């Protein structure tokens, strides 16, 4: 049996964050990272580029030398199949046992697959969450000219956009009444949808796929509304859910997501979690939920690592942020974009051409969220104002100004602190 002081299950962004965190305070103890992907650390957010033809090496998030530099042993291409939380032992798919002092579960999420009639036994039915999915789609590209994407969230619209760019006829079917409902408000959903329609993507909203038709080869899908859309491939992109596979039959609490405390620790003292697998605090409302977003995974990993190294440091919670990177007109958003009740104030501005739109959501004078389309330079200032819970009553109309959002409207004391920077960025900054 081999052993390591710290074992990191997973090698992606949460794992990298954790390694950074551990090494800030513990340069000596041994770290072992185990991941089933042989590529090691790669960027799942860049899978679309791989489908478009980029080299797999292009997806590398931290180079191979990163692990060496950080003094981390790697076991790539091995899947962790068992976890004995009582004895602190992991088992891999080749039967090897590894004992740990502390373990981080950065096992990510798995695509939510609805049971669709006719989906079984057909080759060209895909999900789009990891490199294996992307490889399958890329290999089979020559075998289909048309595809139906189920789900108009971030992943759905991204794969739709990518396939459309590769000259496939793409139709998106969405159960809700608008696209990108989590990231955008109704007006910006409309703008995003029309941008994609302008590229040739078709949308069916308030509808769902009831059956995938055909034998081995897909001939089309029939919708609840009764419509039949001919197509040769189907991609389900309804969302990812925390991966609870490894936690089954362990005393570790998992309820639609790994339960972790403010220190990213589970109910078992030496088992930590970070990334898409956990339920994390959303700072916009203080609720714990699954927030499968890149920057949050990194931050959670880092906080987990710091705590694993023995320094108590709480996670202040994550702010959901989105960037629709694939669209020709950039769209950024953060926090609450659609107010859940009447207690919020919404102010917005747009130009008639639809190339500029910005909306700010406030509660009691404080910024809770925003969407900005077209003009994005300085948008992070808005993100900072959400995090710092600054009263923006006096400057809110200035923040709708089309030009770059600068620091001129910020309080002088704030600016001088930043400009002379005696302290550093903090979550509570």
């Amino acid at each position, binding site marked *: 049996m081999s052993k390591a002081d710290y074992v990191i299950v997973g090698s992606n962004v949460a794992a990298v964050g954790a390694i950074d*965190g551990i090494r*800030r305070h513990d340069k000596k103890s041994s770290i072992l990272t185990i991941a089933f992907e042989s590529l090691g650390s790669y*960027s799942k*957010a*860049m899978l679309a*580029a791989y489908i478009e033809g980029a080299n797999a090496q292009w997806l*590398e*998030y*931290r*180079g191979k030398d990163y692990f060496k530099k950080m003094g981390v042993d790697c076991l790539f291409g091995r899947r962790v199949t068992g976890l004995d939380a009582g004895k602190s032992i992991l088992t891999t798919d080749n039967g090897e046992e590894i004992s740990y002092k502390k373990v981080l579960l950065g096992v990510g999420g798995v695509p939510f697959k609805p049971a669709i009639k006719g989906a079984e036994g057909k080759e060209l039915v895909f999900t789009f969450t990891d490199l294996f999915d992307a490889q399958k789609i890329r290999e089979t590209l020559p075998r289909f000219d048309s595809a139906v994407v189920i789900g108009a969230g971030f992943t759905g619209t991204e794969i739709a956009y990518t396939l459309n760019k590769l000259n496939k006829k793409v139709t998106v079917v969405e159960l809700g009444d608008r696209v990108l409902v989590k990231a955008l408000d109704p007006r910006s959903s409309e703008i995003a949808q029309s941008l994609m329609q302008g590229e040739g993507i078709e949308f069916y909203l308030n509808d769902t796929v009831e059956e995938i038709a055909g034998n081995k080869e897909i001939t089309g899908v029939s919708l609840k509304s009764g419509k039949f859309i001919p197509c040769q491939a189907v991609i389900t992109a309804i969302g990812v859910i925390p991966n609870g596979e490894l936690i089954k039959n362990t005393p570790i609490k998992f309820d639609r997501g790994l339960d972790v405390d403010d220190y990213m620790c589970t109910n078992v003292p030496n088992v930590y979690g970070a990334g898409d697998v956990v339920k994390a605090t959303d700072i916009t409302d203080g609720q714990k939920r699954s927030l499968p977003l*890149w*920057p949050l995974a*990194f*931050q959670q990993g*880092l*906080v987990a690592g*710091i705590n694993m190294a023995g320094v108590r*440091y709480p996670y*202040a919670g994550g702010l959901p*942020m*989105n*960037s629709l*990177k694939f669209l020709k007109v*950039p769209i*950024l*958003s*953060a926090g609450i974009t659609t107010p859940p009740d009447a207690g919020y104030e919404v102010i917005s501005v747009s130009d008639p051409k639809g190339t500029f739109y910005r909306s700010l959501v406030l509660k009691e004078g404080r910024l809770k969220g925003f969407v900005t389309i077209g003009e*994005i*330079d*300085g*948008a*992070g*200032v808005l*993100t*900072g*104002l959400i*995090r*710092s819970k600054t009263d923006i009553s006096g400057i809110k109309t200035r923040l709708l100004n089309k030009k*770059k*959002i*600068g*620091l*001129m409207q910020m309080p*002088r004391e704030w*600016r*001088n602190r*930043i*400009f*002379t*920077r*005696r*302290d*550093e*960025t*903090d*979550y509570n*900054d």
Partner: protein
Amino acid sequence: MKKVIIVEDYCIACYNCEVACVATHSRSEDPVKAYKREGLRGRTNAVVEVESPLAFSSMCRHCKHPWCMDACISGAIQRLDNGIVYLDEERCVGCWGCVVGCPYGAAHPNLAGKDKHAFKCDLCIKRLDAGLNPACVEACPNKALLYDETIEREEVHT
């Protein structure tokens, strides 16, 4: 760590820092060529804001824990051993995560042209290696930008 300290009371809105920044990050390292031939107008990492009589130039604060780095999906942004938060434009895929993440608006999107990537201050790393001050500091006629030591808080993680 030494950083560019901004003194807003001294700024006279001359924009010399912007020109110097563009020039030093151009191929020719010549301001006229950089603007006219290399199409680098607007590609300054030090950005002047003016609302008379107030003016200042601001750029990346090289945070100990950079929000832009958290949000970077390609790994293009990394914090170097010397503390410089460096964005490798070759690796950047233009996801704008840093743009939405930086609370100081110091990571900028290059939306013009087909070359889609973000850009930000690199503290003139090449000039520092050569024993020179950052170009904006060198170009400032009124000491509104200084290259000097900042005192870091002891224990800051995120």
